[in-house]
C-alpha cells in the first residue's frame, strides 16, 4: 500500500475549528490538506438556502466567542469577512406582557427594583469572566507531570483568580458549583429578567436552571465572551457561512489545500503512528500528522477504531455525554414580524423566550424523559433585519434555537417533528401575532438532524457536553486533553477539546499552537 500524496498535516473537517487550525499550521510553513465530507466548507457554521430566496445560518446563527485577536491574526477582513451588525441587543419576551430589554436602561423601565442588582451582578460576573478567560486560550496543563510549564500554567490560573481580591475570590469559589436558579434568586426579583439571564446559563447544555453546575456554564459563556472581547453577540454579513468562507480563504492564502466532498473513512495507522487517512472513495492520503476537528467519538471510535486504543481510554470516550438538547428552527416570512411591545430597533437582536426560571425549569423537565415541553424556550433572531441579502425584498427569515428538544424522542421523530414545529410556531405567535400567516416555508432541525447534517455524534454543538467533569484538563477525556491523542501523530482540534464549541475557533488555534510547540 503506497499513498499518493504527502502532506505535513491532514486536517479532518473544514468546520471553523478545522479551518482555523489549518490556517495557523499553514502559516507556520506546514503543507496542509483539509478534507471536508460536505460539499461546502463550514461544518455547523454554514449559510444555506432552505427555501427559494431565503438563506439562513443553518447551524450556529450568531458570533460571540471568536477572539478579535484571531480575526485580526488571520486578517479575515482582507478575505471578505465583515459584520452585518455588532453589539446586538437582547430582549426578554413575555407572552401576554411587555418585553424587557437587557440593559440597565431597559431594566429601569420595566423592573426598576432590579436595576442596581443587575448592574452589580453583571459587573461582578464580568470580572470573574475576565479572570477566567486567559485559561481558554492555551492548552490545559497536564496533571501528574513535573514539567515546569504545566505547573506554571496552573499557577497562572490561580494567580488570575487570586488577583480578583479576597471578596471576589471568595464569591467566585462560593458560586462556581451552584445552580443559576439560586444565584439569580439571591440577586434579582423580576422573573422575566431572571429567566433571560438563566437562559444564557443553560443555552446549548443539558442543564435546567436548577441543575448544579449551571453557574459554571454561565461563567463559561461569559469567559468566552471576555476572551473574545465581546460581551454582546454579532452577526456576520452573509451569515456564519460567510465567516467560514473567509476562514477557508485565509487558510488557502496561507498555503493550505481544501478538498470538499472528501469524506474520510479511516485514519491510517502505521507502526502505531497516524500516517494519513483513507477516504470513503478508497483513496489513500499520507501525512506526518492527522488533526481531527471531528467530535471525539467520531474521531476515536469511528475513524480510528478501538483496536488502536487502550480499553480504559475507549471506555472514557464512549461514556462522554454527547447528546444535544437543542433544535434549530428556520422560518421564511413574507413580511417583517411584529412582536408585542418590541421596538423595531430590538428586532435585529436576540429575542429570548424564557419568561421565568420556573418556565425554563419546566421546559427542561420533559427532556429528561424523552419528551419536549409544550412551552419550550427559545433564542430567536431575525437575521434579515441586519442583512437584507438573506431574504427577498420585504421578506424575512427567522432563525431560532429551540431549547430542550430531546435527541431520542419517545415515539420517534417521524411523527414528533411536525407537532413540535406547530407548537414552537404557536409559542412565537403568542408574542408575535400574525406570524403564522406570514410563514411561507419552515424547517426544524432536531438533534438527530443536526447529527446527520453536520456529522456531529449526538448532535451537540459543543460536541461533548460542557460540564465541570468534561472541561479544561479533562476535556474531552484524560489522555487527550492537550490536543494530542494517545496515538502518536494524531491530534484533536474540534469543539470536543478545550475550550469547547460555539463559533470561537479557539480550540483550533490552541491545537495548532500545541502541535507546533511539540514539533518545534
Amino acid at each position, binding site marked *: 500500500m503506497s499513498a499518493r500524496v504527502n502532506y505535513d498535516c491532514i486536517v479532518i473537517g473544514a468546520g471553523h475549528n478545522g479551518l482555523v487550525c489549518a490556517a495557523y499550521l499553514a502559516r507556520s510553513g506546514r503543507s496542509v490538506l483539509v478534507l471536508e465530507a460536505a460539499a461546502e466548507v463550514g461544518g455547523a457554521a454554514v449559510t444555506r438556502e432552505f427555501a427559494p430566496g431565503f438563506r439562513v445560518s443553518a447551524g450556529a446563527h450568531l458570533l460571540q466567542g471568536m477572539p478579535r485577536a484571531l480575526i485580526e491574526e488571520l486578517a479575515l477582513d482582507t478575505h471578505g469577512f465583515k459584520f452585518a451588525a455588532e453589539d446586538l441587543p437582547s430582549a426578554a419576551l413575555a407572552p401576554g406582557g411587555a418585553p424587557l430589554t437587557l440593559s440597565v436602561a431597559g431594566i429601569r423601565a420595566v423592573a426598576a427594583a432590579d436595576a442596581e442588582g443587575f448592574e452589580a451582578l453583571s459587573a461582578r460576573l464580568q470580572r470573574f469572566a475576565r479572570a477566567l478567560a486567559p485559561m481558554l486560550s492555551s492548552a490545559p496543563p497536564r496533571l501528574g507531570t513535573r514539567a515546569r510549564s504545566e505547573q506554571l500554567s496552573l499557577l497562572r490560573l490561580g494567580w488570575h483568580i487570586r488577583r480578583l481580591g479576597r471578596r471576589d475570590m471568595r464569591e467566585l469559589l462560593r458560586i462556581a458549583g451552584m445552580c443559576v436558579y439560586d444565584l439569580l434568586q439571591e440577586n434579582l426579583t423580576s422573573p422575566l429578567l431572571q429567566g433571560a439571564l438563566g437562559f444564557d446559563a443553560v443555552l446549548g447544555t443539558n442543564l435546567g436552571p436548577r441543575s448544579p453546575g449551571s453557574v459554571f456554564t454561565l461563567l463559561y459563556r461569559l469567559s468566552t465572551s471576555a476572551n473574545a472581547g465581546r460581551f454582546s453577540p454579532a452577526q456576520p454579513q452573509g451569515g456564519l457561512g460567510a465567516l467560514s468562507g473567509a476562514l477557508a480563504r485565509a487558510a488557502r492564502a496561507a498555503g493550505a489545500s481544501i478538498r470538499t466532498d472528501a469524506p474520510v473513512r479511516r485514519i491510517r495507522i502505521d507502526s*502505531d503512528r497516524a500516517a494519513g487517512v483513507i477516504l470513503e472513495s478508497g483513496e489513500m492520503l499520507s501525512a506526518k500528522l492527522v488533526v481531527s476537528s471531528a467530535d471525539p467519538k467520531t474521531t476515536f*471510535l469511528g475513524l480510528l*477504531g*478501538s*483496536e*488502536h*486504543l*487502550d*480499553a*480504559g*481510554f*475507549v*471506555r472514557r470516550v*464512549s461514556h462522554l455525554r454527547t447528546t444535544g438538547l437543542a433544535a434549530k428552527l428556520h422560518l421564511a416570512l413574507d413580511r417583517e414580524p411584529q412582536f408585542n411591545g418590541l421596538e423595531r430597533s430590538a428586532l435585529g437582536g436576540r429575542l429570548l423566550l424564557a419568561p421565568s426560571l420556573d418556565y425554563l425549569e419546566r421546559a427542561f423537565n420533559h427532556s429528561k424523559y424523552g419528551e419536549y415541553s409544550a412551552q419550550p424556550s427559545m433564542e430567536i433572531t431575525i437575521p434579515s433585519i441586519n442583512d437584507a441579502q438573506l431574504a427577498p425584498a420585504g421578506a424575512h427569515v427567522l432563525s431560532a434555537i429551540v431549547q430542550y428538544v430531546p435527541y431520542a424522542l419517545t415515539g420517534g421523530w417521524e411523527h414528533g417533528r411536525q407537532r413540535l414545529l406547530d407548537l414552537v410556531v404557536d409559542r412565537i405567535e403568542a408574542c408575535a401575532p400574525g406570524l403564522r400567516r406570514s410563514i411561507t416555508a419552515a424547517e426544524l432541525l432536531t438533534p438527530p438532524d443536526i447529527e446527520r447534517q453536520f456529522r456531529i455524534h449526538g448532535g451537540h454543538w459543543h460536541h461533548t457536553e460542557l460540564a465541570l467533569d468534561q472541561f479544561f484538563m479533562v476535556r474531552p477525556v484524560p*489522555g487527550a486533553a492537550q490536543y494530542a491523542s*494517545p496515538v502518536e501523530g494524531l491530534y484533536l482540534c474540534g469543539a470536543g477539546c478545550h475550550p469547547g464549541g460555539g463559533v470561537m475557533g479557539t480550540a483550533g488555534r490552541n491545537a495548532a499552537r500545541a502541535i507546533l510547540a511539540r514539533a518545534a
Partner: protein
Amino acid sequence: MHTIPARALFSEPLLRTPFHERARALSQLDSFIPWNGYTTVDVFSTVEQEYFAIRNASTLYDLTPMAKYRIAGADALRFLNRLVTRDVSKLKPNRVAYAVWCNDSGHLIDDGTVFRFGESDFRLCAQERQLDWLLDSAIGFDVEIADVTELSAALAIQGPTSCAVLKSLGLAGVERLKPFDIGHFALEGAPITISRTGFTGDLGYEVWMHPQDAESIWDRLMLAGRSRGVRPLGSRALNMARIEAGFILPNVEFVSAERTLRTGRDRSPLELGLDWLVDFNKGHFTGRRSLLAQRAAGVPRRLVGLDIVGNKPAHNALVYAARSGRRQIGAVTSATWSPTCKRNIALALLDAPHVEPGLEVWVEIYLNSELVWERRMCAARIVERPFYAPERRRATPPADF
C-alpha cells in the same frame, strides 16, 4: 445466567460449588475459606499429606470458582489480542495459553488462561471476576461475552499418577495430550473437556464438565484413583506447589490495578518477570504504549526467586541489601519451605539494581516459638525460577502407574 435469590445471598453469602457435598464429606478439619464468592476447602486432612500427594501420587482440586468467560463472535480473536499482552493469533484451536492483561497504564489487572476451541470460540479463565473490564474492552468489537462461571464445573487432577487415573476411566487418547492441549471426551454419556494445564508445575490436567455431572465424575475419579494414591487437595498445599513452580497469584504477588488505591502500588508484567508474555510486535493491546515507556525508562523492580538460609519460611519478610538491615530493597511476596527441593524458598519483589541472579541479599524473618518472638536476619541468594520443574510435567505420553 441464573440469578441468586436475595434472601439466600443474605443468609448464605458464599456459593457452593457442585462438588461441595463431596468435599464436606471428606473434609476432616472443616477448614473452608472463601474464594471468588464460593466456599472452598483450605485443608482436607493435613497440608503435608496433600502436598506430598501432588508430588508423589495425585490430587483432586475443585477450581470451579475460577471466573470463566465464553468469548465468541467475528472479532473474538481481535478482541483477545487487544485484551491480553501475548499474541493469541499464535494459539491454535484446542490449545491453551497462559496470559495476563493490563490497564491503560500497563499495570496488571489479572492473569488467567485463554482456551481456544475454534476459529472464533474462546474461553477466558481468570482468577477474579472480569466482566466489567471485558465489556469495556469489547467496545468497538463484534464479540459476545458471557459469564459461564456457574455453567461449568472444573476439577484439577494433578500429580504423577494423574494421567494413569484418567486413562483407567477409559478416556482413550488422554495420554497423547501435550502440555496446553485440549481434548474432548465423554464419560458414560457425560461430555467432558480435558486440558493439560494446572497450577502445580507437575504433570496434571484440568477436567471441565457440566455441573450436573460433577458429583458422579468426582466419584469416578476418586474410585479410579484409589490404587493410585489420589487425595482431595485444599488451597494451602496447592499454594506450596505453586510457589515451587514459581507461579504468581493475584493479591499476593500483585494487587489488581483496577483495585489499588495508593499510587505506585500497581505492578506491571515487566516487574513480575512476565516479559516473555508481552509481545510488542503483535499490534496494539491495552497498556502497550505505557509498557514501552516503562521498558525505555527502566523497570523499577523485579520479581525474583530467593533461596534462603535455614528452614523457617520467610512469610511477609522485608529484604535488605546488607546484614545491617539499614537499606530495604524489597519484600517477600510468597514463602514456603519446599519439601521436595529441601530448600527454604520465596518469591520477592526487589528494587531494580538488586535483581541479578546469584546476588546475596538479607531477609528479616520473624519467628514465633511458643509465643516468644525472635528476629532472624538470614542470608539469601537470588535464584532462577521455577524452583522445581520435574521432567514429567512435559513428558508425552506420561509414565503409566
